[in-house]
């Protein structure tokens, strides 16, 4: 098995979960990673301080796409305060791989964008 491109990464890269755009979303935020040109747009709906719907679209490497797919699956229904507390460690646990500094930014783009979207909302 490949040490980086594990089955779970490739699976989410080929079949991303929560891909798309939610109409009439409560937040709609687009961010880029200027180092590699990755781009992500997140749209989501919030109810009772919880994230009830989330979708992403964008372009990027397998790591960034798998990370977006896995994280959006993980946090659906979660309270905003707990989403704000998430960090690099949580993402790496979700991906189950070790990343070099250059690739950590790929994995973190979705979380950073989501947290920014939530902060801008409040």
């Amino acid at each position, binding site marked *: 098995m490949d040490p980086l491109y594990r089955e779970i990464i490739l699976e989410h890269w080929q079949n991303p979960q929560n891909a798309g755009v939610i109409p009439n979303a409560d937040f709609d935020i687009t961010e880029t990673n200027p180092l590699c040109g990755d781009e992500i747009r997140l749209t989501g709906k919030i109810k009772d301080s919880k994230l009830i719907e989330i979708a992403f679209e964008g*372009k990027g490497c397998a790591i960034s796409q798998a990370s977006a797919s896995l994280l959006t699956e993980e946090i659906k229904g979660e309270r905003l305060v707990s989403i704000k507390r998430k960090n690099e460690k949580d993402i790496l646990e979700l991906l189950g791989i070790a990343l070099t500094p250059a*690739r950590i930014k790929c994995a973190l783009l979705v979380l950073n964008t989501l947290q920014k979207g939530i902060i801008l909302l409040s």
Partner: protein
Amino acid sequence: MLGPSGVGVLYGKSELLEEMDPLIVGSHMIKTVVKEKAIWANLPDKFEAGTRNIEGVIGLGAATDYLQHISFSKIQQYEKTLITYALDMFSRQKGVKLLGPKDSENRLGVFSFVVGNVHAHDVSEVLNRSHIAVRAGHHCAQPLMECIGVAGTVRASIYLYNTKEDIDALENGIEEVRNVFAI
């Protein structure tokens, strides 16, 4: 140039260089300074403010001597054989899109390519593991990438120190990319 980084050459017509004011001021670049103005030193001192990048300039001189010793025509000739070999390799790759001309007459030994739907950074990650050094991404040319319709490309370039074995290694590396991403 095979020289050290941080050194370059400003090449221009002396009458135009005489007309120009320096971008940076510092020691060794003036003749006279009075309260109202400064009179710049003669060329090239005018453009060489402060302590020179001594080791850089000496290194660039050595690199230039080295290249001239080999001769540019020999380098060009050798590169051409490698370019032809590489183009032949690329023409055999299924699902690999090579940008630019496909014949060695009208191109340099810089090969920008895309492997299937795999992102350039994923391709370079796998290639780098096999010690194949490539650059990946939009190469500071985002509008061009948009025009071509790709997120980015992988770029391999050859020079006088490369061999046919290096291109064979690249071929194997591309095969490995196909294996990892099952394409």
